[in-house]
């Protein structure tokens, strides 16, 4: 270990302690460590014996990384991973600081890293993953990526960096044949859902449209792990002709596909030592990742959080509602700079909204007007709006519902007194 990395660890850890005492400031220690030692990630993570597994895609990265880490741990491996949302270089560096020894050693057999699409090419070039898992390419953050094709190209670079194995979603329009466009060789396997499940879902897997012609259709590859049934909070995965029941963090085919992706990846990594039965145990013991179908307890009421990171995640989460939620709060701010896509969303699973807040509230209220969905109160002051919503009588179904963008999910958690912040240390 070089002098710079040693210094980065000492300074970074000190900053981390200081930041935690102040309550938050998750990515700052990593940012500082990378400033001191630009090769900080290579120097620490590259020394892990079984190498790096990168997980990327538009939606489900945190959930799937969590699942894959659990399955590998259930198989007896020591796993280093980045906490949900900490998927930029500085977030990963912060995670390293939380577990690295002063001599620069991470006590882990394998690293499972959730990787941001935009930073994916840079991160994978640094860390040279043995294995890459790509989940999906959906319309996401157009203000940031401008067009899905750019995301496709970035993920092609990520996939091409894998030296040993690549795991792809066969039901995604762009991923179904992504392996055919890559130079080099590696073992390629697929996961997916049965055709009946895909056609039975209101909006399929909400995969981004593809405009080039003559490519392989989504679904037309043999899958190593297939979702064959989805229940309320469980799913059945077919693995090597064997049906394995797994628990899901929340309702929905998209969560079942995340589980299939994690399982197929564990299988690719572990080879002969993979045991399908351990998947059930691993996924049964997981808690939900923040804001992904999470239930918060506030006083004696529970609040279901529906995150609307992007059109696909909102549509799939709305599709998985079993009835129109009784009390609905919505908060959207500048984290969603261009909400044009709400006009592409089928909102028919909602029958009213009680309170809308955040700087984009009036744009959403206008949309609901055109969709004939009644809106109670619009108040741009998030705290006031929250107060109003929490003061509503207890719902007969015992559950309130919040539809939030990522930034509002984080800030509302904080307001409600849930202190741990995503992207921080453990």
């Amino acid at each position: 270990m070089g002098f710079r990395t040693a210094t980065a660890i000492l300074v970074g850890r000190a900053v981390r302690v200081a930041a935690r005492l102040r309550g938050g400031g998750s990515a700052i220690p990593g940012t500082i460590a990378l400033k001191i030692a630009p090769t900080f990630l290579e120097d620490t993570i590259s020394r892990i014996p079984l190498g790096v597994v990168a997980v990327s895609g538009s939606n489900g990265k945190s959930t799937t990384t969590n699942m894959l880490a659990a399955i590998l741990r259930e198989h007896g491996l020591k796993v280093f991973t980045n906490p949900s949302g900490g998927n930029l270089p500085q977030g990963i560096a912060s995670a390293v600081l939380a577990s690295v020894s002063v001599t620069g050693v991470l006590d882990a057999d394998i690293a499972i890293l959730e990787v941001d699409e935009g930073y994916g090419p840079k991160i994978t070039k640094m860390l040279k993953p043995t294995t890459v898992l790509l989940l999906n390419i959906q319309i996401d953050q157009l203000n940031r990526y401008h067009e899905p094709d750019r995301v496709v190209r970035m993920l092609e670079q990520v996939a091409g960096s894998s030296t040993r194995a690549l795991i792809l979603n066969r039901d995604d329009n762009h991923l179904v044949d992504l392996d055919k466009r890559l130079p080099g060789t590696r073992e390629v396997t697929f996961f997916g859902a049965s055709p009946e499940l895909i056609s039975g879902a209101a909006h399929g897997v909400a995969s981004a449209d593809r405009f080039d012609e003559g490519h392989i259709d989504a679904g037309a590859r043999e899958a190593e792990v297939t979702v064959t049934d989805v229940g309320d909070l469980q799913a059945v995965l077919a693995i090597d002709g064997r049906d394995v029941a797994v628990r899901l963090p929340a309702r929905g085919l998209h969560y079942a596909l995340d589980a299939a992706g994690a399982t197929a990846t564990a299988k690719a990594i572990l080879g002969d030592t993979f045991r399908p039965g351990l998947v059930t145990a691993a996924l049964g013991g997981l808690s939900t990742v923040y804001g992904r179908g999470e239930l918060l307890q506030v006083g004696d009421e529970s609040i279901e959080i529906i995150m609307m990171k992007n059109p696909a995640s909102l549509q799939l989460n709305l599709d998985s509602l079993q009835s129109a939620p009784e009390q609905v709060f919505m908060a959207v701010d500048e984290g969603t700079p261009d909400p044009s896509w709400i006009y592409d969303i089928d909102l028919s699973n909602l029958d009213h909204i009680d309170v809308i807040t955040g700087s984009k509230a009036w744009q959403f209220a206008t949309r609901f007007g055109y969709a004939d969905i009644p809106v109670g109160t619009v108040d741009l002051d998030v705290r006031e709006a929250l107060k109003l919503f929490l003061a509503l009588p207890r719902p007969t179904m015992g559950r309130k519902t919040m539809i939030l963008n990522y930034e509002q999910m984080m800030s509302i958690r904080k307001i409600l007194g849930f202190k741990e912040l995503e992207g921080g240390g453990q």
Partner: protein
Amino acid sequence: MSDLTLRILHLFPRTLGMNGESGNVDILRRRASSRGIAVEITRLEPGVAVPLQVDLVFIGSGPVSAEVQAHPGVADVAPGLRLLAQQGVPFLAVGAGFQLLGETVTLADGTVLAGAGVFPVRTVIAGERVVGDFVVESRLGTLVGFENRGSYIDIGDAAPIGHVVYGRGNLAASGPGAGASAAAAAASDGSSTGATLVAPDARVEGFWVDNLIGTHLHGPVLANNPALADWLLETALARRASTALPPATPDLVEIDRRAAEARATIAAAPLSE
């Protein structure tokens, strides 16, 4: 008004339908039907001829890849569209659709695509992409939306929709301090009270001559700007049946109140990347 059905032609809805663009057509339909005017929408994909009887034409936006994909269909619809335009049928063309209905689109690799020639404008895919809130002062008042483009559009001496208050507009701005980010900085400088939100040069947005409107306002554009939607419906009705657009019904009045709040919120504190 009972036997009048307004015929809207929606061009290339699948290829140029990303990011809420179809919302523009839904909004036109709703604003007509609430007032008792029936609407018939023809969704035209590439390879099909333009119908002769049309009262309003809409084409939406999409990424460059979709624009390239839609382009082979342009030649087939060009003569029909030019005829409709000459007959005074109102057009709303947004983003990539606006570009394809112009004269040429020059791609980043230098390839020149021939447009439909409805709008006398030329597009070049180039320059730094501008992404952010977009505020334009027009003859219908303040129009608000979202700008997300990596191209320049030259409208020659034609009239624009209006002057840019926040954002970039058709061309790279010239003159000192005229970059998009410089304008953004100037516009958001200082406190909200008394801050000047006028861009430091004469940048303009879009194209509006007679019945033809082209723009890079997204949002979708008609969601935040119902006055523009009503202008299109008014123009279509006047041409078709010399009929005035009935006043907004209570449901529309409430929607428009919300849209006015949305415009005010964005215009008071516009942001860009």
